[in-house]
């Protein structure tokens, strides 16, 4: 579902990502861990088509990111949804309006949009606030709106960039349950986080660890590496993980 081969990215002379290689199978739940500046966000932005892949190769949900054309990006973004730490929702619109946004741009009928929006809102427990403008919601509710919006378009992959970063521990663990539920329905999830509690509480997830733009480790080793910041794998070697999903 996701693959990167010797993927690098530079901002001017600064190397944000260096020869990273990995593969994520369909239906996998993968954590991307590492300290601030490790390259997690850069990797997610490359995978979402926000940054152009210039060095190395990458693909996601069947789209070759090295050769993707501008007019294909909207289609990619309907298959690959993204959730941010700062929510990126429209604060002056209602929850319902925010959630139906991906359906609206995809050209679904009003009836289809209504059914799908109601269903996603219900699955995230947002019925009570569905007609409130988002600015009046708590941080946790706003993040749930962002996740609901990501899920509304039935994406194949969800990329989440520190989705629990602005939430307290209790709210963070409740949100993780939501992600796990979507994962249980077959959605591939790649989540960047430096929250070790979340990683430990999700034993079924695979962990990729980044440091200074290098992919340090993959799998069980990475759970420990993230906290210790120790490199166990030579950076230039890259990692190709098994295609099969873990559970």
């Amino acid at each position, binding site marked *: 579902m996701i693959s990167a081969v010797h993927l690098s990215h530079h901002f001017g002379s600064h190397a944000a990502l260096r020869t990273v290689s990995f593969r994520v199978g369909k239906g996998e739940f993968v954590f991307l861990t590492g300290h601030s500046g490790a390259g997690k966000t850069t990797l997610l932005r490359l995978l979402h088509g926000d940054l152009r892949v210039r060095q190395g190769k990458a693909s996601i949900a069947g789209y070759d990111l090295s050769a993707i054309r501008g007019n294909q990006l909207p289609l*990619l973004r309907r298959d690959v949804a993204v959730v941010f730490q700062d929510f990126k929702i429209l604060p002056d619109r209602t929850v319902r309006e925010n959630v139906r946004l991906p359906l609206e741009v995809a050209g679904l009928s009003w009836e289809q949009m209504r059914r799908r929006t109601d269903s996603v809102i219900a699955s995230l427990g947002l019925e009570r606030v569905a007609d409130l403008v988002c600015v009046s919601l708590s941080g946790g509710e706003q993040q749930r709106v962002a996740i609901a919006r990501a899920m509304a*378009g039935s994406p194949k992959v969800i990329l989440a960039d520190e989705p629990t970063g602005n939430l307290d521990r209790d709210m963070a663990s409740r949100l993780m349950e939501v992600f796990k539920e979507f994962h249980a329905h077959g959605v591939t999830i790649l989540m960047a986080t430096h929250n070790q509690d979340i990683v430990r509480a999700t034993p079924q997830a695979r962990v990729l660890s980044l440091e200074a733009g290098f992919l340090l480790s993959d799998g069980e080793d990475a759970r420990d590496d993230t906290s210790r910041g120790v490199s166990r794998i030579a950076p230039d070697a890259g990692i190709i993980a098994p295609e099969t999903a873990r559970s």
Partner: protein
Amino acid sequence: MTLLSRAFARALGQIGLSPGLHAMAALALGLTCFLAGAFGLILTNLDQYLELHKGHAQFQIYWKPGTGLGEVRKQWDAIRAVSGVDEFVGFTPDQALESLKKSLGGSYDFTWLGGANPLPATGLASFRVSSGEPRPSQMFLERLRALPGVDAVRLSPMQLDVATALRSLSVQVLIPLSLSLSLAIAVVAYLAARLCLEGRRTEVEILRLVGAREWFVRLPWAVSATVTGLAGSLAGLGALRLTQIALASVLYEPPLWIKLGPLPLEEALVMVLMAAMTSALGGWLAARE
């Protein structure tokens, strides 16, 4: 079709979500249109005034006192027949005296002259002057001077110069000035559209994030900017019309007698269209990645 109608609905929704911002943008555009329209109004009225007076030189002809009126009248007819003469008014000595009497209040008594009118026969010929071609008027002047019985022909050389210069004024000044004003409207319309978008840049970003196609992202901005541009320019020109009506009656009073006509409909329409189109372009460009 569904997506297109949604894009239009989104445009109107944008105005509804930030009416203050759109009103300010419309106000800025309206003021620019008002100022540009005011310049246009002045220039148009000036042009109309010049159109009445430009391109003509007036020749004042004086016959020697005592020249027979029969001969003078023949010469008047000959002058009227000259190519380039648009108007000729002749005054016999008696008509000249009567005119002088009227200008002195009508009650002045000239009986002391004892019937010996000292005034000569005179005539005023309006001759068409073409730009950059002073020769025909020069030839006309020589022809008048050569008429038997003509004492003097007066023509201000400056008047001739002004007459030839004014003809090209509209081409040399009005067009560049109109273009500058058009450019000012275009710039303000573009900046107003950008200003409206700056406050809602996140929305553009989010629309792209959820997979909206480029036209779906940009069309609402172009449409809402067009609506703002139309509203602003119409309001500005409406205010200008009211100002013109108020000023027209004030200026057409003694001693000014200045006629202030409205901005021609075609010019007003061009201004509104230009404001709408540049606003649309501004909105479309402002929403680019």
